[in-house]
Every structure is written in structure tokens, then in C-alpha cells.
């Protein structure tokens, strides 16, 4: 049996930030476990820039952002194991893991930080009809092939879904000499950042078809083409709007799912809206001493916010090991009111908040000129005017601790039209 104070599962941006912060808070014995061949997670294949604007006040590429944290972790002498798969975690914090150097390992630890990230939804999750030829892959898989392995995925491509990775890959394929015929999005708005729509599609005259989807796929061995149709407001294809696009490649950018097999086996409580563990203000799950952070908790659109949230997990995991977390009698729940899809954290123990309570949330639709209202029980404690809110862009709200009464049962966030 190997012993550590804190074991971090996943060496992407969340795991790196959590491990570094735990060390800064005085924990010597930390192990990071990563299943890939190197640390850095998905950042290593995100070679485009735009990372770090909040964290470092400059625009970095994904690998550059990862590099800063990997070097800091290595300089601190924090242990890590790559090419290592965690097979099982139990609620007594025993971990079973395996790799080809150490073989099978049993690791016992005082605290665990879950930072396994997320994975892409695949064709199977969408149930697109048609044949199953080669040439259909998720946008992230194509990204890894092109940017890390050096393989080009096709010459003429269509993209389904306007998530950020799909938009980024539209530009990437174009720069590498492929023709991108268009991006179809089933919703009437894009799921990606405006910046990406402009710099990845408009810059290269790639059309974005909102309220459109793929209804059929042609090709036996290799993809030959896709049928695209407009959808109505119930997302049902409209007869007569079908159009055929001849292409050899279809990329899917249709959403991300937190990767929670280990969390589910552990029996921690999950939030059906985020598809991640329910966490409290300290990023602790419903099993004490097991923390979670980053995309395994909820899908973020900016890595900067992952870093911020993961530092909190690292800091409180360190406090947990030292026995410094305050267990409160009064549990406050966050409540998603009108227009709010979810809020993280779901549970708050006010005693553990340091100056400000930070809430991450997503809205359910596109809203313009709207008021975002925060209530402690039924009393409004804060309100902000917002010119525009998009489901594709996560909102962050800071509430000063002195505005939050200590004896409340819930904090509600809701949207109200101006003037109401």
C-alpha cells in the first residue's frame, strides 16, 4: 500500500491547479495521476490562442497555458504518474490504479481531488440515421489527430454543432488546406463564443446554418455526403428544406459530458443538470474529504475559470487534511430561479467562505437587457443589469460575505426583465 495525504485524479488544468494550491497550503505529500502520456490534459491539443486572459492578463495558446502549471508543479517536486489509469476509488479513500511500470497499485490517501474532465458526445448520443462509414469523428478527436499526431482527417468537411471546438476546427481544417462547407446548429443560437464565430467562420467565409441539422448520412466505406435540413421551433426537420453536401469528413461538436464513472461508483450524489457531482463552497462532494473541480463538475468555456475553481478545491483539500474545515449546522442551498439552468456550488456552508461567495451559472436561453437578481431566502441582496446573456457563455457572480445573512436556507438566482 502506497500512502499520500492528497491524491489528484487527472493531470489536466484542474488537477494541476488543485495540486499546486494544495502544496502552497502546506501539504507535502501529493500525487497526481494522469492516464495520458503527459500532463496538461486537453490543453495540449488546443494549440489556438485565447487562454489566460483572466488568469495572466495575456493571450496564451493551450500548450503555453499548460506549460506554466506543469513547470510550477515540477519545480515544487510534486509527485505524478503518467500513463496511469485509476480503476477504482472507494469511499474510504483507497485507490486502485495500474500502469506498465508499477503494475497494479493500491494507494491510500486522506483526501482525493477528482479532476477527470469531460469527454465529447458522439454520434451514438445523437442517433443520426444513415450508414456508418469512416470519416465521421468528434471535433476533439480530429483536433488531436491534426495537432498532435500529424494526421490530416479529410479534404472536404461539414461540421455538426457550433460548440467552440467545432468552430476552432473549422478554421484549423481551412488553414491546413481542407474545404469546410458549413456548420449546422440545431438551436437558433450558437453554442460557441462570439469571438470564435467571427474569427473561425466569418474570417474564412464558412457559413453557419442556425436551426439546421443533419438528417441522413451517405457513404459505404468512406463518407460521401450529408443531408442537411432546417428544423422548426420543436427541432423537427421541415420537409422541403433538405440540401445535400458532398463531403468526405463530418466533425461532431455537439456537447461535452463530465466523465464521472469513478464518481458514480463511489456513490457521491450527482446533479442531473450539470451531470457532475454536487459540490459545496469548498468544492467538496457529498463524501467528506473527496473534492472535485473543473469540467468533471460542470463544463466550463474558459480554462481560467477552471483554474480559479480548482485552486479552491486544492486549498480546501489541504484544510481538510489539517482538520481545519468548519462543519456547519446550517446548510444553505443554491436555487436556480427563472432563466437559470444551473448553479455551482449547489451547497454552501457560510462559515467556510472567505470574503466573497463565488457562484458559476448558465442561463437557459439568450436574454437581452435583463436583471440578474440574487435573493437570500426571499430578500434581494444583490442585482446586476446585463445587456446580454447567452447559454454558451458561463456567468460568474461574486457576492460579498457581509451581504449574506447567516441564518438563511437558500440563495436564489433569477432573471427578471427590466422594469418589472
Amino acid at each position, binding site marked *: 500500500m502506497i500512502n499520500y495525504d492528497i491524491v489528484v485524479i487527472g493531470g489536466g488544468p484542474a488537477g494541476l491547479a488543485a495540486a499546486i494550491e494544495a502544496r502552497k497550503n502546506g501539504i507535502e505529500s501529493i500525487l497526481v495521476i494522469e492516464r495520458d502520456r503527459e500532463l496538461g490534459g486537453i490543453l495540449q491539443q488546443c*494549440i489556438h490562442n485565447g487562454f489566460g486572459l483572466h488568469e495572466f492578463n495575456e*493571450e496564451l495558446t493551450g*500548450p503555453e497555458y499548460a506549460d506554466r502549471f506543469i513547470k510550477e508543479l515540477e519545480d515544487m517536486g510534486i509527485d505524478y504518474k503518467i500513463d496511469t489509469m485509476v480503476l477504482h476509488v472507494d469511499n474510504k479513500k483507497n485507490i486502485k490504479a495500474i500502469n506498465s511500470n508499477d503494475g497494479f497499485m493500491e494507494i491510500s490517501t486522506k483526501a482525493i481531488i477528482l479532476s477527470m474532465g469531460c469527454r465529447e458526445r458522439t454520434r451514438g448520443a445523437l442517433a443520426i440515421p444513415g450508414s456508418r462509414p469512416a470519416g465521421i469523428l468528434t471535433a476533439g478527436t480530429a483536433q488531436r489527430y491534426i495537432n498532435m499526431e500529424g494526421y490530416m482527417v479529410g479534404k472536404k468537411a461539414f461540421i455538426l454543432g457550433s460548440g467552440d471546438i467545432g468552430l476552432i476546427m473549422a478554421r484549423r481544417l481551412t488553414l491546413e488546406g481542407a474545404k469546410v462547407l458549413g456548420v449546422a446548429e440545431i438551436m437558433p443560437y450558437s453554442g460557441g463564443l462570439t469571438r470564435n464565430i467571427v474569427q473561425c467562420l466569418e474570417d474564412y467565409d464558412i457559413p453557419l446554418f442556425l436551426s439546421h441539422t443533419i438528417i441522413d448520412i451517405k457513404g459505404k466505406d468512406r463518407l460521401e455526403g450529408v443531408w442537411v435540413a432546417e428544423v422548426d421551433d420543436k427541432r423537427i426537420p421541415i420537409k422541403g428544406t433538405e440540401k445535400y453536401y458532398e463531403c468526405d469528413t463530418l466533425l461532431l461538436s455537439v456537447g461535452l459530458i463530465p466523465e464521472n464513472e469513478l464518481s458514480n461508483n463511489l456513490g457521491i450524489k450527482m446533479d442531473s443538470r450539470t451531470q457532475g457531482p454536487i459540490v459545496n463552497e469548498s468544492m467538496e462532494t457529498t463524501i467528506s474529504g473527496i473534492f472535485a473541480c473543473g469540467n468533471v463538475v460542470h463544463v466550463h468555456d474558459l480554462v481560467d475559470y477552471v483554474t480559479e475553481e480548482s485552486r479552491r478545491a486544492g486549498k480546501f483539500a489541504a484544510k481538510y487534511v489539517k482538520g481545519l474545515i468548519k462543519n456547519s449546522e446550517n446548510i444553505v442551498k443554491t436555487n436556480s430561479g427563472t432563466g437559470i439552468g444551473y448553479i455551482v456550488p449547489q451547497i454552501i456552508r457560510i462559515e467556510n467562505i472567505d470574503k466573497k461567495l463565488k457562484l458559476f451559472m448558465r442561463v437557459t436561453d439568450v436574454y437581452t437587457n435583463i436583471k440578474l437578481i440574487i435573493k437570500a431566502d426571499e430578500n434581494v441582496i444583490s442585482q446586476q443589469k446585463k445587456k446580454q446573456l447567452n447559454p454558451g457563455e458561463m456567468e460568474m457572480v461574486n457576492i460579498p460575505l457581509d451581504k449574506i445573512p447567516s441564518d438563511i436556507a437558500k440563495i436564489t438566482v433569477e432573471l427578471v426583465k427590466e422594469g418589472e
Partner: protein
Amino acid sequence: MLRKEITCIVCPIGCRLLVEKDDKEELGYKVSGNKCTRGEDYGIKEMTNPTRVITSTVKVLNGLLPRVPIKTDGPVPKDKIFKCMEEIDKVVIEAPINIGDIIILDILNTGVNVVATRDMK
């Protein structure tokens, strides 16, 4: 160009800007549809001298991976993006490479260098 519609990317609102040639204006263009002055600056820059940072990869020999990511260390004129890509595609380098190493000096006389964005052992 006399007029162009562009989406502003300065902030998440994404105003639809209309940029029109207007000799009465100090900078030669009038911007409408913007909700702030930053949008005006962006609109005029996009019309007069649009630039972008290019990110891509180059081929690596004897490295952990067969490709290393690169970027231009400053923005290049938008109309030179594909010409720059032709230069980037010609490069083959040997590992080891350090983050920040110059891969192409002063690409196409733009005054901008192409640099590695990670270490490659």
C-alpha cells in the same frame, strides 16, 4: 472598401457594426451599431488593417510527438495568413525544442517571428 458589416468581438455582446467610408471623420470611417467606443476602434481597425495571430504546428523529427505547436509572436496582416501557412508547412525541425524557440525569423518580412508554444523532448 466602402462599407462592411462586422460582428464586434471586444466583449460578449457581439454588436453588429456597420463600418462606412466617411471622409468627414478623422480616421476616414464612420462606425454605427456599436454600444461603446471600443467597438468603434475595433470596427475601424478591421476595415483598415485587420490582423490575426496564426497558430498551427510544424513537423518534428525524433520528438515525443511528431508535431510541435507554433504561433506567430504578434499579429500578421489577415491577407497574409495563407502565404504564412505555406512557409510554416515547409518547416521540419529536430527535437529537442523549447517553448519560445524561434522557428521562423521574421516570416515574410512582417517583422513577426514564428515561435514554438511548448517544449518537445
